[in-house]
């Protein structure tokens, strides 16, 4: 097996836990602020690992660049949205979970 | 000159001109009424040219984009389309003149109505003409949506709570109807790989899939044309819209899905549709005639009465399905198409009269109109003139149409349809006389001002045209059969 393939497989397989963690976090974390963490993990790392895994397989640099662009866009949107949602939740008077409740 | 007259695709201009005028009316609202009137006159001219071409050179098919049928879209310029175009031309021309007088820029609210009426109406007109000419199932869907959406916007035009609710009900019924129709189209495309009416007519198999598709499309179109018991949305929408809009909705718009139904049942699926399905539509038609007329008798407001009368009249059109059989086929076909023309003119005229009366009296409650006499009495006489056609008294076109339908019922031995037509006529006379009797009660109310000329003449003209069409019914009758899916002799004399 081509070492590039092995590397790809490693990256792709590594991505799965992040998405699972994102979902489980979404389900299990106590409040909206914590859940934001879950979301951003999936965005940044899960998708990032997939992008890297696939970019290794790409035939041309252009395809890899396209993949990277998609990742960057998702991260950019994710960060902005996370910030705005957190701000909305704060202004709506929700207190971040402090671990005591 | 004649060569151009007989070869130029006149009919497409009945679509293109209103489309372009709608854009101009939207861009320059102050000049919108002018654009509307010019469009109305030119559309009437193009319809006349189309009629001339069909009369001399016969029905024809127009390719769009120069592509042949399964790939491109075709327009069918034939008899049935022409009768619809004639209705559209007559009603559209008259209502345009009336609307130019009705919508004035008196205040802010009225100016808004005036500015938006024209682009919406011109788009509606283009949609109607496009639908009447279309020979392609999917294109029919797009045109139907153009018609429905503009009708909805027009129904909501005056912004009153009742109008908004009526428009919303209309919208929901319209969406349900068009999506159901579209699902039928999808199944048809899946089965036959084309949506062209002519090609489908040659290839359709009478199997369960075709029946399912036909049932879906028919159900959707029944909802759109408001056949009893799916008529719930029509009276509120038609009665709460501004009068010129009501005239258009009742006189023109309900006929659009009707033509698609006729084309589907007689051209595309003549063998798929069973006699039982045809009778079901006929029975629903009878239900509409009786229920609509009874409801019209009960109404307390003039506009609602006229709206329920539309529910009843729609029923007559559906008698075509069981009646167009064997040797009576051509008779019933011509009868129903004449009725479409007659009803279009008379009903539009009646709604316009309602508008003038409401303008004068400030309301349209029947009790409040009692003893109106004078100015209102003259308006009610126009109403009566239009009602002559609606009820079907000689020598109006309505009379000839019903006469043909009765003949068809006798020839095919379906007496119960004859009985329903007779009962419907009786009930219609009932609600018309109920209105007219108001004019002849003693006058107690103070005299009202005379309506401006532009609000008086258009309804009268339409009523007179509807009446006189009866004397000249031969030409439309012959034209109706040009390229129609049925043929045979028209049985004018009673043959029991």
């Amino acid at each position, binding site marked *: 097996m081509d070492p590039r393939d092995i590397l790809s497989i490693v990256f792709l397989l590594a991505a799965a836990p992040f998405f699972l963690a994102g979902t489980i976090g979404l389900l299990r974390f106590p409040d909206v602020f914590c859940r934001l963490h879950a979301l951003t993990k999936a965005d940044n790392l899960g998708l990032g690992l997939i992008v890297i895994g696939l970019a290794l397989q790409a035939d041309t640099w252009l395809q890899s660049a396209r993949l990277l662009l998609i990742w960057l866009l998702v991260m950019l949107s994710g960060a902005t949205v996370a910030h705005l949602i957190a701000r909305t939740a704060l202004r709506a008077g929700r207190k971040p979970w402090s671990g005591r409740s | 000159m004649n060569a151009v007259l007989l070869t130029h695709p006149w009919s497409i201009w009945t679509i293109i001109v209103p489309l372009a005028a709608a854009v101009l009316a939207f861009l320059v609202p102050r000049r919108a009424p002018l654009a509307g009137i010019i469009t109305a006159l030119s559309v009437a001219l193009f319809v006349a040219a189309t009629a001339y071409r069909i009369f001399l050179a016969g029905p024809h098919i127009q390719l769009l984009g120069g592509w042949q049928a399964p790939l491109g879209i075709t327009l069918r310029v034939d008899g049935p389309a022409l009768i619809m175009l004639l209705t559209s031309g007559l009603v559209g021309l008259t209502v345009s003149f009336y609307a130019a007088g009705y919508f004035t820029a008196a205040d802010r609210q009225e100016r808004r109505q005036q500015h938006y009426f024209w682009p919406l109406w011109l788009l509606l007109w283009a949609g109607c003409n496009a639908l009447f000419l279309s020979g392609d199932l999917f294109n029919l869907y797009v045109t139907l949506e153009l018609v429905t959406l503009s009708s*909805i916007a027009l129904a*909501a035009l005056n*912004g009153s*709570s009742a109008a908004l609710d009526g428009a919303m009900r209309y919208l929901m019924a319209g969406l349900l109807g068009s999506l159901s129709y*579209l699902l039928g189209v*999808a199944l048809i495309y899946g089965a036959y790989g084309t949506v062209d009416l002519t090609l489908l007519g040659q290839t359709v198999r009478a199997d369960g899939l075709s029946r399912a598709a036909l049932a879906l499309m028919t159900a959707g179109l029944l909802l759109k044309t408001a056949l009893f018991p799916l008529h719930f949305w029509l009276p509120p929408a038609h009665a709460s819209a501004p009068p010129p809009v009501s005239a258009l909705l009742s006189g023109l718009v309900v006929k659009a899905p009707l033509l698609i139904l006729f084309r589907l049942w007689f051209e595309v699926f003549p063998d798929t549709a069973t006699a039982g399905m045809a009778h079901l539509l006929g029975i629903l038609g009878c239900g509409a005639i009786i229920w609509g007329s009874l409801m019209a008798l009960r109404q307390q407001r003039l506009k609602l009465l006229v709206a329920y009368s539309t529910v009843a009249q729609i029923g007559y059109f559906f008698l075509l399905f069981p009646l167009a059989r064997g040797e009576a086929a051509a008779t019933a076909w011509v009868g129903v198409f004449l009725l479409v023309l007659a009803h279009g003119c008379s009903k539009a005229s009646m709604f316009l009269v309602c508008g003038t009366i409401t303008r004068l009296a400030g309301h349209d409650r029947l009790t409040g109109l009692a003893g109106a006499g004078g100015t209102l009495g003259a308006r009610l006489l126009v109403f009566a003139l239009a009602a002559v056609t609606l009820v079907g008294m000689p020598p109006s076109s309505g009379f000839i149409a019903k006469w043909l339908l009765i003949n068809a019922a006798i020839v095919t031995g379906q007496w119960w349809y004859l009985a329903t037509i007779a009962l419907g006529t009786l009930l219609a006379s009932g609600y018309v006389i109920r209105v007219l009797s108001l004019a002849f009660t003693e006058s107690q109310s103070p005299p009202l001002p005379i309506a401006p000329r532009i609000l008086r003449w258009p309804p009268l003209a339409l009523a007179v045209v509807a009446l006189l069409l009866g004397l000249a019914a031969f030409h439309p009758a012959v034209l109706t059969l040009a390229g129609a899916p049925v043929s045979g002799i028209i049985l004018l004399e009673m043959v029991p």
Partner: protein
Amino acid sequence: MSVSLVYTAAGIILFLLGTYGLVAYAHLLRKILAANIMGSGVFMVFIAVAGRTPGAPDPVPHAMVLTGIVVTVAFTSVALALAVRIARTSNRAHLPGRDEEQR
């Protein structure tokens, strides 16, 4: 080819689900959502049908669905504007039912 049949069936069920929602619920926004779901079902039938042809899928239903999507968006936006207007005029988000008129 069985996959396309799965999607065709799913499309038909979506259409009927949407029909149920449109008829059964009073809230206007819900009705609009239901109509959109109906539309999606119809489009799914179109696309599934296009995928049945041998070789590349048939482009004509794809074009028809694009047209249909645009028309649906047009209807949705007008319906929403109308619903907002009704809410502002009458302070309700549903159409008056029969029992309500009596009350």
